[in-house]
């Protein structure tokens, strides 16, 4: 159920984002979604790709520092309060969210969010018990055109 996310260290200056993205594009690797966290001096680029093993290899050989992190993709209803409901469940269960970002594609009336939890296994268990749908890697790929 968990997804493998690649994190890259980047300096916060013009043009730094383009190089790693070009490097994986040159290998025909499509990015499913990404997010960027930054401070004044540096940032972290987080990527979800179809073939993360190949992408990791390509990026490392080109000299980037790549970290592998497990994240969880969750379906929420794409209407007001949809996300709040999911967050309430997580809060009630005392699950810590380190960060989250939205997946770029929607499916029907659902939006997909990517969560980084302190304890992803327990998060999956709680979310599933409460009737939320945790999207696994294969399913995620299936609705990418």
């Amino acid at each position, binding site marked *: 159920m968990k997804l493998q996310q690649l994190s890259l260290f980047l300096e916060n200056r013009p043009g730094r984002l383009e190089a790693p993205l070009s490097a994986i594009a040159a290998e025909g690797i499509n990015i499913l979604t990404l997010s960027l966290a930054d401070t004044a*001096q540096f940032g972290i680029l987080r990527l979800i790709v179809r073939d993360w093993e190949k992408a990791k290899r390509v990026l490392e050989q080109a000299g980037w*520092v790549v970290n592998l992190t497990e994240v969880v993709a969750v379906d929420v209803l794409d209407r007001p309060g949809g996300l709040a409901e999911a967050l309430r469940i997580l809060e009630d269960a005392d699950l810590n969210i380190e960060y989250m970002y939205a997946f770029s594609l929607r499916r029907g009336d659902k939006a997909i969010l990517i969560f980084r939890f302190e304890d992803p296994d327990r998060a999956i268990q709680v979310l599933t018990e409460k009737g939320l749908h945790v999207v696994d890697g294969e399913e995620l790929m299936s609705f990418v055109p």
Partner: protein
Amino acid sequence: MLKELWNDAEGGFHPASAPDFLPQTALKEVQLRRLRAVVARAYAKVQLFRERMDERGLTPESIQSLQDIRHLPFTVKTDLRDTYPFGLFASPMSDVVRLHASSGTTGKPIVVAYTREDVEVWSEVMARTFASCGLHRGDILQNAFGYGLFTGGLGAHYGGEALGATVIPISGGNTDRQIMLIRDFNVTSLCCTPSYFTHMVERARELGIDLRELPLRVGIFGAEPWTDGMRHHIEAEAGIKAYDIYGLSEIIGPGVAAECSAQDGLHVFEDHFYPEIIDPDTGEPLPDGEEGELVITTLSKKAMPMIRYRTRDITSLITEPCSCGRTIRRMRRIGRRSDDMFIIRGVNVFPSQVEAALMAVEGTLPHYQIILTRKGGMDRMAVEVEVTPEVFSDSIRGLEDIRARLAQSIERILGIRVELRLVEPHTIARSEGKAKRVIDRRNEG
């Protein structure tokens, strides 16, 4: 040379190492005899030296004991520049079989000369260097010191052959090929600058090659100062023993001093290179054990004898016996070279202090650079440190935390504020020879 007679593939001491174990009285006899001969030779053949001796009312006969060396005039780096190119040669060109020259980043380079005999002595001291680092016949030595005018490449090459090792003369550069040969040729030992080897370690990892799983077991590193923290990093990452060696072109090149299995100071091959420690300000000799500037007299050099050459390297001599059994004295590792020092806001700073501060926090950040700028008449010091997989954790807070700890560690040691920047891998230029640790932009624009 002894190498033809020697067939000890099982380790132990190479016969070339015999002078390392001379009894003190015999060593001192050799030193005095050679000192008198080299002073007589320099006096007869080198005008600058003769003039300085005459000014002081000295003749070669003034040297009656080793202690008398303190009366002799110093030789300094500018003497080599002032007499460029051949002014300090003591042999006619017909006897000189080799010239080397320093890179000379400012102005003219420094030229050094060797007779056939000098090349043999050089081979011998480099063979002793490698033997001291545990190499022997049967070892496959990848020589990644630069071949050419720089003394490192050819010095190590001749020494490796004299030892009876199999030398791969790959020279510096082409890192991917270096790693391929280490793996494919079952290389057991490698010599280069420590900074270039940290680059090789990093590149091997990117290529998915674990150096610890290869037969490589010894690294012989020199030509620039490096800290014990860097040594621990190299040893852990590459699964090798990392030894420090010392030398300088003006004296002979590499082969002046080398660590042994104890890794506790470098044995000076003092039957050929007589060491003294002086107070760099007064020029007065300091007793053994005290820290000061290293001064070396070449006892057997023919083409270019150096009398009391001021190295500008700061160290001290150790007279206590070494656990390896060698009787020749040791010098402490060079942490500070006067040439590398810079002054910022009135504080004297050596790049090695910054390296030690970085390695104290995280022993896994070997690529750094110091950048000095001036803004509004105020000097600023920035340290750029490349992020490595060991410290990168997908957490902004984690990175901020490391950045703060690195800055604090430097500020604690130097007592001045420093701007610490985490940068991407490969941002800092990699050197195939000596690393450039300091970029001084204070006098630009």
